[in-house]
């Protein structure tokens, strides 16, 4: 390479800038002929989310970047999990097609920013409903799609049967989470001696616990169940019965858009009501001409519930159940006893079955 060719190379180098600027202005021009350049939503847009969602033809749904059973990519490259299926249910309600969702895998740090800046329309990212988030952050929790709580896992040979017996132990947990603070509160309140061993990533915490660097592993009970499958010998470990914190996980939308909040809230209520009424993806098509007024309202043969929500189809709840399933079906597919997580319904059972799942009636 001579000096001359380097000089020429330099000129060639500067051309991509022109190209980059060109692309930028191209993208910035909303009337761009190539259309649809943007993947994410634009800014703000308070009060008209439903309209925007209908215009762009899909829901941008914020999920976690990989939490077993809640949202993780499966072998085939599709997102799966209880949060993912909730997004599918909202898409089924709005479009009658559960696949009209784009997923944004969000880290815990950016999830609220993403929602507020209009990047995502809906956040179903195992987010705990707390006073602070609901009131101070400009967010609106529409309900609870999974009742979680923090628990403890220990090795069986530690000989401990209750969290109150955990004295002089080292506790593995994630740094900077409420998990760490909850554990500290619990041990201090019960005058137990403890030492926190904290790591940044869940994988590190599990590896440390498995390598016996600590006696106890604490996180949400759904997390304990998921991480247990990654231990060398899952049967040597047990989850203690105590739950030391309330973690109601629910879908979140931006505050100030009641219409969209209602759509998401009633999607959740429809999922729960469907289970209560015994409507499943398998039997709902045969219930379309049912004589039961409750069922008739649900499947949309009676009343104008869809129109009232701003949806095009009065059979929105029918679409949810036919194409995604009811709450129980989703639970069984994603986190239930037959999945690797193996979580029993517990508090997440219907109120009629000893749980606390209860949805207002559709009428």
């Amino acid at each position: 390479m001579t000096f001359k060719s380097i000089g020429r190379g330099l000129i060639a180098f500067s051309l991509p800038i022109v190209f980059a600027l060109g692309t930028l202005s191209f993208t910035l021009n909303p009337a761009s002929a190539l259309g649809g350049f943007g993947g994410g939503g634009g800014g703000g847009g308070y009060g008209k989310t439903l309209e925007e969602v209908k215009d762009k033809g899909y829901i941008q749904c914020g999920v976690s970047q990989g939490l077993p059973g809640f949202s993780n990519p499966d072998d085939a490259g599709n997102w799966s999990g209880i949060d993912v299926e909730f997004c599918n249910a909202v898409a089924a309600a709005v479009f009658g097609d559960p696949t009209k969702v784009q997923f944004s895998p969000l880290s815990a740090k950016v999830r609220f920013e993403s929602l507020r800046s209009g990047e995502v329309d809906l956040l179903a990212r195992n987010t705990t409903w707390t006073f602070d988030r609901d009131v101070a952050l400009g967010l609106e929790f529409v309900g609870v799609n999974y009742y979680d709580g923090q628990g403890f896992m220990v090795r069986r040979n530690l000989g401990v049967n209750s969290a109150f017996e955990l004295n002089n132990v080292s506790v593995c947990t994630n740094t900077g989470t409420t998990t760490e603070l909850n554990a500290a509160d619990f041990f201090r309140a019960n005058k137990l001696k403890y030492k926190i061993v904290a790591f940044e990533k869940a994988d590190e915490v599990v590896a440390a616990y498995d390598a016996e660097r600590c006696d106890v592993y604490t996180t949400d009970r759904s997390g304990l169940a998921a991480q247990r499958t990654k231990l060398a010998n899952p049967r040597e470990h047990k989850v203690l019965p105590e739950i030391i914190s309330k973690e109601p996980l629910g879908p979140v939308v931006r505050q100030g858009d009641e219409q969209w909040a209602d759509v998401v809230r009633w999607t959740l209520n429809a999922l729960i009501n469907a289970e209560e009424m015994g409507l499943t993806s398998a039997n709902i098509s045969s219930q379309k001409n049912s004589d039961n007024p409750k069922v008739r309202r649900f499947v949309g043969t009676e009343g104008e519930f869809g129109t009232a929500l701003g949806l095009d189809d009065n059979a929105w709840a029918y679409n949810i159940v036919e194409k995604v399933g009811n709450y129980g079906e989703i639970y069984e597919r994603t986190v239930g006893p037959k999945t690797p997580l193996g979580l029993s319904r517990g508090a997440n059972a219907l109120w009629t079955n000893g749980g606390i799942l209860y949805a207002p009636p559709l009428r």
Partner: protein
Amino acid sequence: MKNWLKDLRYWLQENLFFSYKNSILSVVAGLFLFWLAYQLVNWFFLQAVWVGTIEDCRIHQEGACWPFVQVRISQFLYGFYPSEERWRVNIILFIFFAGIGLLVYERTPYRGKIVFFMLCVFPLLSWLVLRGGILWLTDVPTGRWGGFMLTLVLASVSIVSSLPLGILLALGRRANSLPFVKAFCVVFIEFWRGVPVITVLFATAFMLPLFLPASVNFDQLLRAMVGFILFSSAYMAEIVRGGLEGLQRGQYEASDALGMSYWQSRTRVILPQALKLMIPGILLTIIGLFKDTTLVLIIGLLDFLGMIQAGIADPRWGSPNVPFTGYAFAAIVYFCFCYSMSIYARYIEHKFSEGRERR
């Protein structure tokens, strides 16, 4: 044969066993290296599960679980890019690597034209082909891009654009006769260098939309790219400035004395010499940038490492060796890429310093 043995013995005596202390250190270090190599080979190959399912991995936990990588390799490479459209990525990747191969080999004819194609035509072409939405190509929003392809797109775009921007900034910073240009360049460079890359990404990802009108759809991936380009061009500028400072004043004066204009002297005399001095620094930035692209995970783009981490979270693949296998695979791939870049840069450096006395 005997000569060879003699040489070896001489070399050993000279380098490893020339004193008692040295001999002990050599033996200890040798044993440690042997132990480490044995452990690695054992884990990666001997005890590893090569074919099978997750059940096999759970039974043989003392080695790597390669079926995990096999099942998900296409996800690691393409992210959520629709599988029936992946031929588009393959074509672009082929052109990318073929172009690089042709440019690395020195006797390729029309190298200048290939450079022009790779730098000016190819980025536009790959954007249109990968993004689609024109002609008969279906639209694939960038939200579905991911895996190694996303890493390559991010890294190559920011590397290619940051170098010319960096050169301009560095020249601007040294332009004493243009105080406004100089001030702008100084502020620009110092600002972006003073801010952590995560902050830059965060700002471009979430603050940019707030400044723009609501109707503007500004792609998330483009925003991340803008962030990386701004950040890396500031670093590049300082490296280029270092190269410019390294030249003797005589070079500037000589080119002025020959009656060259500013741009003539910069493109023909100063930069060609300065660029040689900058190669190690540029390479350092490029490799750093290549690895920094994993930070897009924070703003919700799943690059190569992000896809691997998301895959590890699959409860159906719960086994203690699965996370290690995933991270080991990531390490191998990143190492291969970074090391080959480093080899090429060393070769270029060596080539340029031929015929010049080494200082």
